């Protein structure tokens, strides 16, 4: 019997975040320029499996994705059962910088999707010196809530069912069936209230509309890639951000939705590889 192993390796990292010990799961593949990947709300680092399994990316990049605390194979901190999970801009910023530092990454390229795309904008503004370049996927400055977020965490609504169902329409229409359903499975596996807690950052605390134009792309190049079928972070919202930042490059990816790297890795790579080439050439 022959088996095949992917080049992805995973490890657990112990570090203090927000003054408390945390156990964080980190996966990586490849060698070269570090490419630090941030997953979407309510999901985990598995969303980047397409990048980590593609030699065109990994021959020149050390691709790293961590599961945020409470997500994927990372644990919530001790005492989690006594509190309500709620992600803030300050925590998210500190988490990315701390984990990047703990991994010894020298000015990584940062790529983040959705909430990861939003925090990428925060980091481009506040810590441009820490990154070689920033790539925001589905990165808008703000999203108004468009459903009652309480439905994501109540005992009479199954969390996994509702989280998967809420985001199902955000996958583009051309996504291969297996990638579509794996993307949704990650949502269905989230812990109770975690997606809702992430959306506190995405829809309330992380609004960066009044500051986003201050991003200086001379200090850190900024690229935005957004899927045409995303009604959460729409192409219009992405272009509004891009148009307000001199030097920012934006691409609307036809047929793709809110989870480009996960819902259709091959279609997404056709857009990402030229961006990585551009960054390498700078």
């Amino acid at each position, binding site marked *: 019997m022959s088996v095949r192993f992917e080049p992805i390796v995973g490890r657990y990292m112990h570090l203090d975040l927000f003054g408390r010990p945390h156990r964080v799961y980190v996966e990586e593949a490849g060698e070269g320029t570090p490419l630090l990947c941030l997953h979407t709300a309510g999901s985990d680092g598995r969303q980047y499996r397409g990048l980590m399994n593609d030699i065109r990316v990994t021959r020149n990049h050390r691709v790293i994705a961590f599961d945020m605390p409470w997500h994927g194979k990372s644990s919530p901190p001790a005492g989690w059962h006594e509190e309500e999970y709620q992600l803030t801009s300050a925590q998210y910023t500190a988490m990315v910088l701390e984990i990047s530092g703990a991994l010894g990454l020298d000015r990584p390229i940062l790529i983040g999707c959705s909430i990861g795309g939003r925090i990428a904008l925060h980091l481009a503004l506040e810590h441009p010196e820490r990154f070689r370049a920033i790539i925001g996927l589905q990165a808008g400055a703000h999203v108004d809530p*468009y*459903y*009652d977020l309480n*439905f994501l965490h109540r005992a*009479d*609504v*199954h969390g996994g*069912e*509702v989280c*998967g*169902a*809420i985001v*199902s*329409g*955000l996958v583009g*229409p051309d996504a291969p069936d297996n990638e579509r359903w794996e993307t949704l499975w990650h949502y269905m596996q989230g812990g109770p209230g975690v997606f809702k807690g992430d959306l506190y950052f995405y829809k309330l605390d992380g609004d960066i509309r009044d500051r986003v134009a201050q991003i200086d792309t001379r200090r850190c190049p900024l690229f935005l890639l957004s899927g*045409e*079928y*995303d*009604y*959460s972070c*729409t*192409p219009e919202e992405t272009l509004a951000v891009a148009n307000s930042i001199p030097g920012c490059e934006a691409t609307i990816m036809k047929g793709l939705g809110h989870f480009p790297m996960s819902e259709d890795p091959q279609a997404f790579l056709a857009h990402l590889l030229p961006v990585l080439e551009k960054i390498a050439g700078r």
Partner: protein
Amino acid sequence: MIEALQRRVNDDEGLVRRGRYLTTSFLLEVGATPWLISIFEGRIVSVTPGPFVMPSSSFALRASEAEWKKFWSRRPPPGSNDLMALIKRRALKAEGNLQIFMSHLRYFKEALGKLREGAAA
């Protein structure tokens, strides 16, 4: 066309199985035309066109004819491809006891998707 919902949903064993704990009636409004749809344990038992005098339902989904037409087209354009997309654009109003709608959201999305042009029965 809305009448086709009953057969198309009931012919999909997987969908009926997923809805086996769902028993409710809801109003589907297509412009000025209301439809009362009754579901028993995941199976659609009746699709009744209005007008009604005092329809009883757990919740209502209301959108214009043009919006439903786009939603039910073979390849809906961005912004019309999903019930939540319509809700975000304020093109679809979901009103009433939405606990039932949200706790079976995948069922309702897939059931109403059955009316899409070219959708498998």
